[in-house]
């Protein structure tokens, strides 16, 4: 019970922090996805005249956003979580604070804020006449839950490593950029040459754009086996990341 109320407090604090001191407060959470939607539409549809990718029956922008939004959640959570222990060193050194709560609240805060943006984008796209299946939104929450578990695993691992090896945080933006281009976010898996497609299976994030596209814009569906494997991978990543974090967390104070 105490742990739950502490976690809730930190999640609230994390969300409040994002908009602390800004004029519009929480309105930014709504504006930011809309602006992003407008910019991407302009660049890809009017400038590059990018058509719908292979195997997709919707335009490029809806296709892109179904992959981009999960990626934003994942990468934003990771960059915030990696330094969260270091950022709260003053608190950790003075009060007995469960360390895992800090990592959890950063990831949860990120997901909650971006989830609101995602729903908003789906609704706006639908109003715009794109065939987004709004009825599939509740089911897509399950996919978000899986992505959350997956993200949490990496977040715990990176947060733990960063305390000991400070090189991770500066290297992370480059790592994330490479990872993003190595994932089928801007392109469809099918757009790749057949000889390269197999390598995508080595990328644990690769299934997520496909899962959301399958659910919400009905592109070529992801296979059941691939889905099951992605679930097992998410759980394994979580177990490994959290396990490693638990091992090293009691020594954070000595290295901060």
């Amino acid at each position, binding site marked *: 019970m105490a742990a739950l109320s502490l976690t809730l407090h930190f999640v609230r604090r994390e969300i409040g922090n994002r908009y602390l001191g800004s004029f519009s407060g929480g309105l930014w959470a709504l504006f930011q996805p809309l602006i992003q939607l407008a910019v991407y539409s302009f660049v890809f549809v009017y400038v590059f005249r990018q058509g719908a990718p292979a195997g997709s029956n919707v335009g490029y922008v809806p296709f892109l956003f179904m992959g981009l939004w999960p990626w934003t959640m994942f990468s934003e959570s990771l960059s915030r979580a990696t330094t969260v222990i270091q950022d709260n060193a003053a608190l950790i050194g003075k009060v007995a*604070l469960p360390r895992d709560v800090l990592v959890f609240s950063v990831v949860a805060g990120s997901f909650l804020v971006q989830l609101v943006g995602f729903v908003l984008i789906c609704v706006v796209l639908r109003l715009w006449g794109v065939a987004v299946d709004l009825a599939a939104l509740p089911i897509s929450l399950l996919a978000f839950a899986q992505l959350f578990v997956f993200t949490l695993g990496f977040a715990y691992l990176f947060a733990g490593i960063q305390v000991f090896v400070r090189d991770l945080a500066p290297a992370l933006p480059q790592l994330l950029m490479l990872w993003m281009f190595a994932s089928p976010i801007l392109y469809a898996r099918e757009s790749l040459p057949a000889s390269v497609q197999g390598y995508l299976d080595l990328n644990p994030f690769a299934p997520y754009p496909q899962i959301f596209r399958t659910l919400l814009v009905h592109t070529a569906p992801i296979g059941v086996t691939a889905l099951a494997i992605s679930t097992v991978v998410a759980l394994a990543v979580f177990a490994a990341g959290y396990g490693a974090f638990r*091992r*090293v967390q009691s020594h954070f104070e000595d290295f901060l």
Partner: protein
Amino acid sequence: MSDDLLVETHALGKSYPLVFHARDRLRALIRLLFGRRDVNAIPVLRDVSLRVHRGESLGLIGENGAGKSTLLKLLTGVLTPTTGTVRVNGRVGALLELGAGFHPDYSGRDNIALSAALYGLSASETRAKLDEIIAFADIGRYIDEPIKHYSSGMVVRLGFAIIAALKPDLLITDEVLAVGDEAFQKKCVRWIEEYLTNGGTLILVSHSMYHIQKLCRQACWLRDGHVAASGDVYDVTQAYLAYQEAKSQTSDGRGDDAQRSALEFHLLDLVINGHAGDSQLVLDRGASLRAAAHVNSRDGRVPVIVFGIARADGSAIYGVSTEMESVRPRRIDANTYVAEITFPSLSVLPGSYVVKAHPLDPEAVRLFDTIERSVVVRGESREFGLVRLEHEWTDVDRHDVEHAPQMISALAR
């Protein structure tokens, strides 16, 4: 672990890893990940076994770097022990260091919520206590300002207000309360006294033996990371002070002595109740105090000798010289004089005091030398102030007449 035992540590030890290079950090990470603990380390605390029961008050003393803060961090769960175990029952309230546990960018109100959440209070419980905390802290509109704009006094006020509202089973604090102004300090001391009478448990860290002896019954002396002595507060503080005294003498005593012997008058010793030396003296309340000072007079002239009693914090209580009362120190040989004074049934209240002696020139104008001896008067008293003044109640009803004589005799003891 019984309900009464709040804190129990067994062979507790803590080592900090030696990390000079970045590669040491990487090596440490890999070792920890694979479950090995033999990281190169410097021990800062060794083999500390402590037990604190409900209602006890423990004073923690020791020099800087002796491991006091590390021990407290282990007790509050901020640090994880390297060896041994620590078990703490019940809710712990820690008031240590200025602003520890507060986030400087958040308002007082938000920080209250944070602290309350850390103590395991739910949001609704916190709301219920919020007004009480704000009223106790009494910092006006600053409660909605970020903590970084607070004065140090305000930070302490807020910290103490939170502790007071949470009513912890165990309170751990140090001299941080001294930062508050006098009115607030009184409020805190009143609260702590009430807390202790209601069965609260206290662990106090202090460099002031006066505070330790005033608030604690037990003491624990940490030296270089291990327990040098623990037990009754008077025994432990006495041992600690004696150690300190001996240490300062071996380091700079010699030069000092040479300098002093060059003075026209210098003190040879100050003997209290027959005890020479530098150890602290413990007297029972109402015991008599006999102080004798031997003075070396370089030119053989008769000195004036002053005796004084001051509180441990330096405030003077009483002082008198041989010249004031028309007596002269007795001559022992050509260059040595002695004066002895007796205070029959010393009327100071329990606490820590200093007895001082100074030689003056025969004209009672120049003061040459000082020797101080600390004296503890033990006992319990609910009276206020420094000394007991002679008094009688002249227009009152007397109830409980049968018990009155016993009480008086108890006081006299």
